[in-house]
């Protein structure tokens, strides 16, 4: 996505990327990025916590107006769990199952219907 951000920016539209993978984003270097140190794919908050989601977005959008140099990345001050950082040892590490079922990676792409949890 960082590559896409750079192309959109080059085309004249300012971009802000929301990252939860600091090293990947630093390498690809989108024009502006905010980093939220949450498990992958939770950059805009925890599920079913609209207040947190809204606050992260408000902070990100305020940062959007503050960036003044290409390639800047700002860390937003959010902590996933102040009492327990053990997710950092596990996220995407050995044995970490993608999809939550661990099968689809062997099968390649898979279609998944949202709302399984409610079904």
């Amino acid at each position, binding site marked *: 996505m960082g590559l896409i951000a750079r192309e*959109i920016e080059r085309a004249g539209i300012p971009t802000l990327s929301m990252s939860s*993978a600091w090293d990947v984003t630093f*390498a690809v270097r989108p024009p502006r990025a905010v980093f939220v140190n949450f498990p992958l794919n939770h950059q805009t908050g925890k599920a079913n916590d609209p207040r947190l989601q809204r606050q992260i977005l408000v902070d990100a959008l305020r940062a*959007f107006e503050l960036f003044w140099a290409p390639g800047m990345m700002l860390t937003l001050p959010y902590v996933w769990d102040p009492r327990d950082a053990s997710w950092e040892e596990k996220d995407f590490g050995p044995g970490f199952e993608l999809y939550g079922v661990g099968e689809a990676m062997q099968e390649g*792409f898979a279609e998944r219907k*949202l*709302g399984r949890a409610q079904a």
Partner: protein
Amino acid sequence: MPISYIQRTRERYADYPPYKWAVNTEAPWTPLLKPIKECRLALVSSGGFYLKSQPPFERDDTSYRAIPKDTDLKELRIYHHGYRDADADLDPNCVFPLDRLRELEAAGVVGALVDPAVTFVINYSHRKEIQERAPKIVAELRAAKADAALLVPV
């Protein structure tokens, strides 16, 4: 502390040829000329979201899906090569914050939320991303008169 996902990806896929991350030491720049509360802001996601009325993504494609801004998130599907989507399944707003951006638009924090939101699944070919997909997304954002874009990668 930030996690080294590049290292973890290397370990996870040790049996495959190593993925070559793009490394850039400079970035392009277009100044944001007005405050966000006056901007038409576009949401762009690589989370593989699509509507059940749309064709799913395919392996290695460079297409995108236009998700109307008034979409009920329960209508979304995911088609992706790999992420733990249990929370996105519960509540897509944790990585595709369409509900929240509609609220911020209504509250005047965002000038206007661009219609549609744009989604895709990243391709492992840098060349295809830059030469094939990016121009399509730029064209869509221009047609929708986006002043600024919020990108949420997966």
